[in-house]
């Protein structure tokens, strides 16, 4: 890859790959994750959850639980002092269930005890009497109004229509397809956890792993009935997020227990509870019709997309908007008619996960492009090149793409890469489908190659006031200039702390840059999601540096003397617009990211086992602020796409999760991930700080359909559902 060094007065600025400031602590085991926190005299909190996807609560008897020795508190909804409703976009979810539970795993009661085992035993002694109700589990039926009404407004959370061009357009070549995407889990490794410490002022200090401190704080103060200044949040070390920490988990519960008992309370979910304790990727049902001329040029796309949001809304409205507005993919399509729904059901709640909405649509539209190629007798890459969007293209929302959109270039980069050599006669078992299970020595193994490309909006959309706050302080310490940066932007593993240091080094020419702990003593930074933090908080830190530089005037940082420069800046990207409720028209997004993949797979067609042999990627990142971290995002995002393609699914039956463990919910291991060859393009977006483009999500979108296309090429099977299971390949 090529990167250009920014002209600066210091090394380790933007465009370089300095070491992470938290790297040494992490490899020594000394970095404090939220689950590592400990306090003298602390208690352990635990959550009693509903075993039923839908039931009426007839009564709760706490008598025996309270009597367990070592138990300090047992709480129900009656103990929630404030508003017993919270939610990211709609406050529709109770902190503790009142009269109804709407999903298996919904919190019903809390226990604080002197040992986690004491808490578990006490929970077993809580008697909840349920009247089990018939759950709503079919997303299409939820849209059509069949079954119980789960919330006062009905079971449709949001419907977004897109109407663009001629709704009655016809075409010479028509391909249709129906697709399904399974429910994927973020499967971050650090479990939901935190420590709440009651304070002398009647408030509480919460140390927690989250993606957005201020939106947590807003929801916590409402539930606790406390003023904002009495609920102070500090980011505990975060063991991955991927969207799964955008909603509350332990936050209010730990604070309730701490305030009730007057003692610090630690809560840590185990892996099984984690599967019930956070939202997942919306499973989707998608019906598509593509019309094109005989040369494969798209005339129209019609689609109906159903996204199952489960019991509570979470970020379903944003997921629906992404799937709808990006529903045709990175292609020029003159006529578009899409309807996209997000629903309430009694399935597990779904919300944000890396690539939210764009991932589900991406699998369907890329599968359709392969069908179109076949119908037109064209190469799959050629049909994509003929329809590839570019700078100046008009999206189905009417929005003009006003920066680089190198879709064709990304695909050409991939076709130019060498393919892996044909397999040897005598192969190492570890390189074969089935691996050391010794299921084949090469017989029945067929190779396939597939391509896909995807589009993702970066930052928050639809008129959201999307901003971040940054404080930069410059002073001379021990004869050397030193800068300190404070934000509330959550470092979840992606390396924001490194990038913020780099920005300050480049802007101020100061090598020593300290990143303060993230907390709510400074203003909102927005969420670590939607590939936005480097853009928005990076932009805010840069703006704060510019303010410091202006205050510095002609002086060099070495000449500050005793003076301390301290500037706080709120920075926002250019505004976006809402979508027209009838047509979906509007300049709703601020930036797009594009990535493309080529997958090479070996498939044991007799057993339906897949080995991804190689997974190559080309992505435009505008400007690689930290090239090593950019590659890390592309590799990690591609791996999650591989997981969705061939193994990852939360399987539900009648609303109940069947596989809440890493034994039964499989994520890729080092044996599943193939080598990757990656091309990083840096085509600056003139509207963004340094020209950068959000990096984290695009590689998760195209990875999945490229792998499935390769399996189709090897097997000839239609494969309309992910994850692809062995029986889909063998047809048995």
């Amino acid at each position: 890859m090529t990167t250009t060094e920014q002209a600066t007065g210091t090394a380790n600025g933007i465009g370089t790959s300095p070491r992470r400031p938290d790297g040494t602590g992490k490899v020594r085991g000394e970095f404090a994750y939220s689950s590592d926190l400990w306090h003298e005299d602390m208690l352990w909190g635990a959550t009693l959850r509903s075993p039923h996807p839908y039931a009426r609560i007839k009564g709760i008897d706490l008598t025996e639980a309270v009597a367990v020795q070592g138990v300090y508190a047992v709480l129900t909804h009656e103990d929630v002092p404030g508003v017993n409703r919270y939610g990211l976009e709609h406050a529709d979810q109770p902190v503790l269930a009142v009269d109804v539970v709407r999903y298996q795993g919904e919190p019903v009661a809390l226990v604080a005890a002197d040992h986690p085992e004491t808490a578990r035993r006490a929970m077993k002694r809580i008697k909840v009497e349920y009247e089990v109700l018939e759950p709503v589990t079919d997303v299409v039926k939820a849209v059509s109004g069949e079954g119980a009404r789960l919330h006062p407004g009905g079971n449709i959370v949001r419907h977004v229509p897109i109407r663009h061009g001629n709704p009655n357009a016809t075409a010479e070549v028509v391909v249709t397809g129906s697709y399904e995407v399974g429910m994927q889990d973020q499967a971050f490794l650090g479990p939901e956890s935190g420590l709440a410490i009651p304070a002398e002022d009647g408030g509480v200090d919460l140390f927690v792993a989250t993606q957005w401190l201020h939106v947590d704080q807003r929801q916590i103060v409402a539930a606790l009935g406390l003023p904002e200044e009495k609920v102070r949040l500090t980011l505990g070390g975060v063991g991955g997020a991927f969207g799964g920490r955008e909603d509350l988990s332990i936050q209010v519960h730990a604070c309730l227990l701490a305030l009730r008992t007057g003692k610090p309370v630690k809560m840590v979910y185990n892996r099984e509870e984690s599967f019930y304790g956070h939202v997942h990727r919306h499973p989707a049902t998608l019906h598509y019709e593509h019309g094109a001329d005989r040369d494969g040029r798209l005339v129209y796309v019609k689609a109906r997309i159903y996204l199952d949001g489960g019991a509570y809304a979470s970020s379903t409205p944003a997921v629906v908007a992404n799937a709808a507005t990006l529903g045709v993919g990175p292609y020029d399509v003159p006529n578009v008619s899409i309807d996209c729904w997000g629903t309430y059901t009694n399935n597990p709640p779904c919300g944000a996960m890396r690539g939210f909405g764009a991932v589900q649509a991406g699998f369907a539209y890329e599968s359709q492009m392969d069908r179109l190629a076949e119908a037109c007798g064209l190469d799959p890459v050629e049909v994509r090149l003929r329809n590839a969007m570019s700078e100046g293209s008009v999206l189905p929302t009417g929005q003009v793409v006003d920066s680089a959109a190198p879709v064709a270039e990304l695909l050409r980069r991939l076709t130019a890469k060498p393919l892996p050599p044909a397999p040897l006669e005598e192969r190492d078992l570890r390189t074969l489908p089935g691996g050391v299970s010794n299921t084949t020595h090469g017989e029945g193994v067929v190779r396939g190659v597939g391509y896909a490309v995807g589009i993702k909006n970066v930052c928050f959309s639809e008129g959201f006031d999307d901003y971040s706050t940054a404080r930069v302080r410059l002073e001379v310490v021990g004869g050397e200039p030193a800068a300190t940066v404070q934000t509330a932007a959550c470092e979840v593993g992606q390396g924001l702390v490194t990038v913020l240091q780099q920005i300050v080094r480049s802007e101020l020419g100061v090598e020593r840059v300290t990143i303060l702990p993230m907390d709510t003593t400074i203003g909102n930074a927005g969420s670590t999601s939607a590939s936005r933090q480097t853009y928005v908080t990076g932009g805010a830190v840069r703006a704060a540096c510019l303010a410091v530089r202006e205050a510095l005037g002609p002086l060099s940082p070495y000449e500050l003397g005793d003076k301390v420069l301290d500037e706080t800046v709120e920075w926002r990207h250019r505004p976006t617009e809402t979508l027209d409720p009838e047509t979906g028209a509007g300049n709703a997004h601020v930036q797009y990211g594009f990535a493309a993949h080529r997958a090479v797979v070996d498939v044991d067609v007799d057993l339906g086992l897949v080995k991804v042999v190689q997974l190559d990627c080309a992505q435009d990142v505008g400007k690689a602020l930290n090239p090593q971290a950019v590659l890390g995002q592309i590799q990690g995002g591609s791996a999650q796409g591989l997981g969705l393609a061939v193994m990852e699914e939360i399987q539900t039956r009648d609303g109940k999760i069947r596989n809440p463990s890493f034994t039964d919910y499989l994520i890729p291991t080092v044996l599943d991930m193939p080598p990757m060859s990656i091309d990083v393009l840096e085509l600056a977006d003139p509207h963004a700080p340094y020209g950068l483009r959000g990096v984290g999500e695009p590689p998760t979108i195209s990875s999945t359909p490229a792998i499935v296309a390769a399996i189709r090429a090897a097997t000839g099977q239609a494969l309309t559902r992910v994850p692809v299971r062995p029986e889909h390949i063998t047809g048995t």
Partner: protein
Amino acid sequence: MRLNVTVNGEAKQADDVWEGESLLYVLRERLGLPGSKNACEQGECGSCTVYLDDVPACSCLVAAGQAEGREVRTVEGLADGERLDPVQQSFVDAGAVQCGFCTPGLVVAAHDLLNRVPDPSDEEIREALAGNLCRCTGYEKILDAVRMASTR
């Protein structure tokens, strides 16, 4: 019960240990060594990997009582004072650390591999690390780190 165990070369004692506690729980909550991680607590993710008498093991699957009188070496015991072990340094240098929650287990597993096989092939590295899940990196830079450490 009272547990006597040598951890990172130091004799340790933990009192009032409940019989159902794992070695992982005792290390993290009773001995002040939270470096070994609790990602699955059922032996699937490898994030709690420690040496138990020089053999790597998932400390979540070891009952605390089973460690009585034995020697445990955790990720906290790998560095030589301020100087990182070459495996640790390579993880930092190669960019193999993102969220880092898998890192302690992977560092111990890689450390063990290089003790046994100083110059492993890619297939050997993959096989040795197959019991350690990472959700952030896609493993490419972890492979880079182990290759780098094998040359140091």
